[in-house]
């Protein structure tokens, strides 16, 4: 066991893992965290805590993760390289380990110009591949980056990363994931899938590279709320592609949100059949209350109880 986290145990035990996402409050209102945890508790194995996603300032993922543990759920702390240098990140990892956080997802982060502090200085001391390697070094070599400074204690983290099979250049995407595997990543969560054909092509490339045997791939799924949401995402979010057929289906439906949930269930069932996919990462943006229903309808409940 690398960290002994619940998520890790679910994978090691051969179960199909389920994670979701929780966005921290835009301030110090812990009630927001509690409300979201209450929607998710019992339906997922662990929950990602985002790190100033889209560069909008929110409570730090480390503080939020600590609250989530107190509230009885396992967090997957996200850490982006956009805002912190290696000193701050290693320092935060010491703190995270001490607070009982056992899962970390290493990301580059959305560019700060998307957020609400556009005049900030961009840090990017490391990229996501180097961050993954840094955490691995801390865990397995028990030193800081550079291999010389010994760490007092154990930083046992289950290391995650992201992958986007829908960005360009397509031919390079699986290779980039392979690089993360070589750097030491234990599991990968993909960007949300709508183009199932492209996702399956990417999974084939992953299998050809043997990456599926080294890392646990989790398919990203986001339920659509309306045709409008689908159109907006297709047009405005770089790296998300939505086939026209899907948008049409949403547009023709009597009730968009119901159809969106239906599509979501179908997607979960479809990705379960793909060799190498070991779980789903359900991102119900501002719709966390649907996770219970989605996991139930998709036959993912009850979640396994690991000791």
């Amino acid at each position, binding site marked *: 066991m690398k960290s002994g986290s619940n998520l890790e145990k679910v994978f090691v035990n051969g179960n199909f893992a389920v994670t979701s996402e929780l966005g921290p409050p835009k301030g110090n209102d812990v009630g927001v965290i509690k409300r979201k945890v209450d929607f998710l508790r019992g339906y997922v194995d662990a929950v990602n805590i985002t790190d100033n996603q889209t560069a909008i300032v929110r409570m730090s993922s480390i503080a939020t993760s600590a609250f989530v543990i107190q509230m009885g759920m396992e967090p997957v702390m996200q850490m982006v390289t956009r805002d912190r240098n290696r000193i701050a990140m290693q320092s935060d990892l010491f703190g995270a380990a001490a607070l009982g956080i056992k899962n970390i997802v290493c990301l580059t982060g959305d560019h700060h110009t998307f957020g609400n502090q556009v005049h900030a200085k961009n840090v990017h001391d490391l990229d996501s591949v180097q961050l993954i390697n840094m955490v691995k070094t801390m865990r397995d070599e028990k030193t800081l980056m550079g291999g010389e400074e010994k760490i007092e204690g154990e930083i046992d983290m289950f290391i995650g990363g992201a992958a986007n099979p829908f960005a360009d*250049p397509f031919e390079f995407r699986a290779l980039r994931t392979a690089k993360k595997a070589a750097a030491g990543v234990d599991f990968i969560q993909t960007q949300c899938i709508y183009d199932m054909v492209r996702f399956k092509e990417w999974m084939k490339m992953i299998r050809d590279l043997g990456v599926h045997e080294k890392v646990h791939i989790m398919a990203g799924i986001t339920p659509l709320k309306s045709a409008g949401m689908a159109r907006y995402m297709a047009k405005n979010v770089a790296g998300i592609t939505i086939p026209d057929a899907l948008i049409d289906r949403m547009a023709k439906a009597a009730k968009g949100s119901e159809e969106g949930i239906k599509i979501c269930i179908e997607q979960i069932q479809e990705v379960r059949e793909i060799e190498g996919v070991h779980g789903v990462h359900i991102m119900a943006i501002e719709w966390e209350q649907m996770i219970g229903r989605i996991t139930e309808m998709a036959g993912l409940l009850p979640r396994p109880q690991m000791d």
Partner: protein
Amino acid sequence: MIKAEQKPFEEILEYLAPYNKILLSGCGACVTVCHAGGEKDGALLASALRMARQNIGKPLEILESTPARQCEPEFALELSDTIGLVQAVLSVSCGVGVQTLTRHFPTTQIYPGVNTTFLGETVEHGVWEERCQACGNCILEKTAGVCPIARCAKQLLNGPCGGSSNGKCEIKRETDCAWQLIYDRSKSLGQLHRLTEIIPAKQWGVQSRDSGPRRIAREDLKV
């Protein structure tokens, strides 16, 4: 070369408000190439400033001079006599040139007339793009001759982020994704396999600006 852009006219007028005789000092090198402040563009600015001041009834006498390179002491010092005749200097050279003048003329007020922007390439006449960030340790050999430090918005060293779409960067749709360029060029050079090598974290603190202003001293060249 170094690229720069003339400061807003109103800002320059504000700097010069207290004076009635100044020197406009251009530079024959980088700012000439990007039309921010060489001899001709300096003359254009001087003409505009004179007319603007005439228009408000406060004439401004402007002497003009353009050393070959304002960052070189021997050329900068050519301005000595002229500087003695004026109350202040508006330098339309890059920040280096301005500071060369401030170092050699410690009692003269020197104003920057341009904003120094980046190290760039002439893409076509009239269009310049950032290419280099003077990071101190060139890795162009590893990235097929395209620099991710200067040309990737996130300075990634191991491949594109998830926002690379149709060869463009997610933060500015007109900007090419540097990693798409690196990928394409690696492919045409038959060197795609190199992109699987992990490039380790950059040593910002040793070679780059992050460890303070840098200096090169060549003992063999010093007199």
